[in-house]
């Protein structure tokens, strides 16, 4: 039947590059073949197809674009099973091939002045397949994300052909599919953007800062187009995004090559892997020498020039060159190794993870089954344990499914830095490390916005202007480094800038002025820096477009803490500031110690247990007959009996027969009394069901190995509770000190 082959034809057509003669011929052949083999095609229709293939094969490359669009229209008519007609498109006149099928093809075919079209809102074709359209929107968005990443790569390496091709392909595919779906304007705009890129690819146009701007703006514009199309899927008119006309005009000018070459100013981000930079970084030569040599002989490659001037030994230059090419290779690899993926709804994924958890429990119950164990059936036992292995693998896999790399977030930030640095006139080199570090998707979502805020903040407040930097002997381009790595069961994200650092005096003065602190009281650097997280706090002298409105850092801290993370600042005046976010790997999985108290079991997060021990009677002392304390290495800690706090019956009463767990931190440490430790488990933390809400002292529940629910203890709240309820203040601490 012709249907599948028609789909294949459509696919071929979409991917066809108008400049690709071989591809065009292949498409024409495939088209002819399906015309031959498909039954029931009227003679007139066959002639139309042959005319079309003729046109595709024989038209000049410059006109092929229009021919292909007409071919698309023909294909579409074919798919519907209507009689086919071929109208040769011509460059000057409108070519309404099958007007009903593609209402925009006319517009597509004529290079009409833009002004005429903008006013009339375009509507989606009546018979457009909405599912197809949605797929198109999603796929195009993905492709644009890839294109944007590639564009940013071009920032540092303008000669990266692979990146240019990625962008080109993205624009081209959007164009082709859009034309196929009858989205004339989108397709047309994509065409303009594509032409720009094709010129870059063919080296007809140098990839300058201006080109970069245009390309990025085009990507944005395409995204807006897609948004508009999405809105229009419910039948409302398809509105043209604002500024399309201007951008289209700019693209035309740029593609025609009339645009005066924009001098790459100092403000433009520098290519990271320049030979001179590598040599300077390695300490082989100093920057001044490199610049001097380069100025003297601009035509000679830098490495050669340096060796000729005896400025650097041949060996080092060769090494640097190797490093450079390696970096380039690495960069290329990074673009090509994007993993294939499909989209799955989150609730399905969560359900799957829940089910796998249940499967693990069910499997454990079979293994522990007494009848099975006593039956002596070796074969069955072996099969059960084999199934168990698979189940465990499945569990590991399901746990990893929610994990996503930080890369998209980092890429978004790279774009942000680029835009901000241009707007603020500060040259910024943005470095990222560890962008493949994986985090739970929820976590990534939770920190994306705070990170944006922090980056803005660092750029605006942290980094100085190029003039200031030069005056203080720094490179004129500031460095903003974002790195992520695993450390101790958590993910650490660091944002470092080499700017002016936090000004302790300024913060103190501001805080005192706002009445946040008592200026007479001495404060540690940590405490002073923490003030910038106070609501309404900003030390920026000016409120700028970027930040400095005094809202922000408090929101950042709240969001990070909401994701169970912490944020730290370290800063050296004149050398920069580092923000360090420490985040749990996932919101859901907790490493916990299962403890027994009477007839109940609880889970205590392992991270909050510092030590557990069985106290000897001499270690225990009491205050006023009630307050129980334990002396550990000269330190006195209050004992909190978990069974009393939670009113559990059947627990051990004697402290020296129980176990004490040292939990909490700083001056909030307590010794939590439990009966037994039952072992360490990785548990999936769940809320206790919305019906029960939040219980003081508990952070949630988890399904244990036997299928029962275990409750997870919130150590911080236990500490608070133990101080005579949640509202307790510092009172009891005074008592403790008196005894100690």
């Amino acid at each position, binding site marked *: 039947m012709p249907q599948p082959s028609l789909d294949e034809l459509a696919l071929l057509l979409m991917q066809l590059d108008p400049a690709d003669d071989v591809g065009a011929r292949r498409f024409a052949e495939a088209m002819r073949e399906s015309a031959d083999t498909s039954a029931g095609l009227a003679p007139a229709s066959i002639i139309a197809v042959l005319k079309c293939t003729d046109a595709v094969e024989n038209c000049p490359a410059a006109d092929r674009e229009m021919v292909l669009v007409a071919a698309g229209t023909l294909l579409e008519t074919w798919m519907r099973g209507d009689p086919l007609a071929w109208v040769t498109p011509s460059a000057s006149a409108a070519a309404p091939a099958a007007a009903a099928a593609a209402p925009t093809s006319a517009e597509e075919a004529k290079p009409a002045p833009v002004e005429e079209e903008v006013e009339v809102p375009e509507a989606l074709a009546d018979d457009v397949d909405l599912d197809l359209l949605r797929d198109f929107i999603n796929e195009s968005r993905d492709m644009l994300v890839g294109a944007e990443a590639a564009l940013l790569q071009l920032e540092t390496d303008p000669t990266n052909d692979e990146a240019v091709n990625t962008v080109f392909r993205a624009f081209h595919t959007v164009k082709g599919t859009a034309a196929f779906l009858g989205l004339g304007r989108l397709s047309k705009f994509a065409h303009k953007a594509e032409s720009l890129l094709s010129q870059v690819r063919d080296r007809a146009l140098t990839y300058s800062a201006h080109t970069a701007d245009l390309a990025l703006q085009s990507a944005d514009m395409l995204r807006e187009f897609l948004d508009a199309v999405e809105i229009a899927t419910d039948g409302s008119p398809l509105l043209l995004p604002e500024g399309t006309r201007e951008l289209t005009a700019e693209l035309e000018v740029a593609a025609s090559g009339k645009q005066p070459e924009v001098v790459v100013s100092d403000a433009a981000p520098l290519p990271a892997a320049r030979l001179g930079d590598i040599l300077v970084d390695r300490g082989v030569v100093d920057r001044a020498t490199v610049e001097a040599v380069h100025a003297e002989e601009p035509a000679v490659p830098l490495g050669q020039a340096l060796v000729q001037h005896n400025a650097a030994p041949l060996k080092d230059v060769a090494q640097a060159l190797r490093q450079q090419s390696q970096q380039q290779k690495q960069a290329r690899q990074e673009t090509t190794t994007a993993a294939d993926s499909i989209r799955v709804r989150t*609730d399905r994924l*969560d*359900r799957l*993870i*829940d*089910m796998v*958890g*249940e499967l693990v429990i069910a499997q454990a119950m079979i293994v522990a089954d007494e009848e099975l164990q006593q039956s002596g059936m070796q074969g069955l036992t072996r099969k059960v344990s084999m199934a168990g292995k698979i189940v465990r693998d499945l569990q590991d896999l399901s746990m990893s499914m929610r994990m996503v790399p930080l890369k998209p977030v980092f890429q978004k930030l790279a774009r942000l830095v680029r835009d901000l640095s241009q707007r603020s006139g500060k040259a910024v080199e943005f470095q990222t490390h560890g962008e493949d570090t994986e985090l739970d998707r*929820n976590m990534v979502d*939770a920190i994306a916005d705070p990170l944006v805020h922090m980056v803005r903040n660092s750029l605006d407040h942290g980094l100085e202007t190029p003039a200031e930097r030069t005056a203080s002997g720094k490179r004129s381009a500031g460095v903003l480094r974002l790195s992520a790595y695993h450390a101790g069961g958590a993910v650490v994200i660091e944002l470092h800038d080499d700017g002016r650092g936090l000004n302790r005096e300024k913060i103190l003065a501001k805080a005192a002025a706002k009445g946040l602190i008592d200026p007479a009281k001495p404060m540690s650097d940590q405490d002073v820096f923490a003030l910038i997280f106070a609501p309404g706090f900003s030390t920026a002298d000016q409120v700028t477009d970027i930040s400095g409105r005094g809202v922000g850092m408090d929101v950042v801290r709240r969001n990070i803490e*909401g*994701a*169970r993370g912490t944020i730290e600042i370290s800063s050296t005046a004149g050398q920069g500031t580092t923000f360090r976010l420490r985040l749990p790997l996932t*919101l*859901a999985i907790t490493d916990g110690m299962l403890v027994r108290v009477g007839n*109940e079991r609880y889970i205590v997060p392992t991270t909050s247990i510092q030590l557990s021990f069985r106290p000897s009677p001499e270690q225990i002392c009491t205050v006023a007959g009630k307050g129980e304390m334990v002396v550990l290495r000269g330190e006195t800690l209050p004992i909190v009996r978990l069974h009393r*706090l*939670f*009113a*559990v019956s059947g627990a051990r009463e004697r402290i020296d027969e129980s176990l004490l767990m040292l939990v909490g931190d700083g001056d909030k440490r307590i010794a939590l009394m439990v009966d037994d430790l039952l072992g360490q488990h990785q548990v*999936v*933390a*769940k*809320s*206790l*069901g*919305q*019906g*029960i*809400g*939040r*219980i*003081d*002292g*508990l*952070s*949630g*529940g988890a*399904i244990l190995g036997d*299928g*029962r*629910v*275990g*409750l997870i203890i919130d150590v911080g709240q236990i500490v608070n509770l133990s101080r005579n309820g949640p509202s307790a203040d510092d009172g009891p601490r005074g008592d403790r000190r008196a005894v100690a």
Partner: protein
Amino acid sequence: MSTTAQPTASQKGEHAGKYLTFFLGTEEYGLKILTVHEIIGMMAVTRVPRTPDFILGVINLRGKVIPVVDLRIRFAMDVTVSQDVCVIVVQVRGIQMGIVVDRVSEVVNIAAEEIEPPPSFGVDVPTDFLLGIGKSQGRVKMLLDIDHVLTGTEIVQAASAVAGSASGDDASPAT
């Protein structure tokens, strides 16, 4: 669902429909069938500290943690242990919750004219958790306003208070 404590006569028409009936002690109660999610056997319940008595604790409903309420304790009735005790899982305003009952009886259709407004016994016997009294097949069934019963326990309110800042776990919300 009605949120008024005392449904008026004009409202009782809207209460007509299918009810799942069950026993608490010797009394028969009815739950609107649409609020019932499923009926499961009694299972191991994990007691949750610092909650009212009638909240028995939480159970594992196929990977989901849901609270279980014992209406017998809530209504200060005698708690008996028997084979027939089971848990009716209800879903109210998107929140799942288990209700322990002595025995599930049947599903009956109760017409509007078979429903009478809840009687008034004065302050000693609160009846505001009833939609009405249904009479079907010669037996009297107390039709529970489950929304109100659970709201009355104040746990639903507590839940909505923390819903916004609910601990990061999103595995539990009902689909």
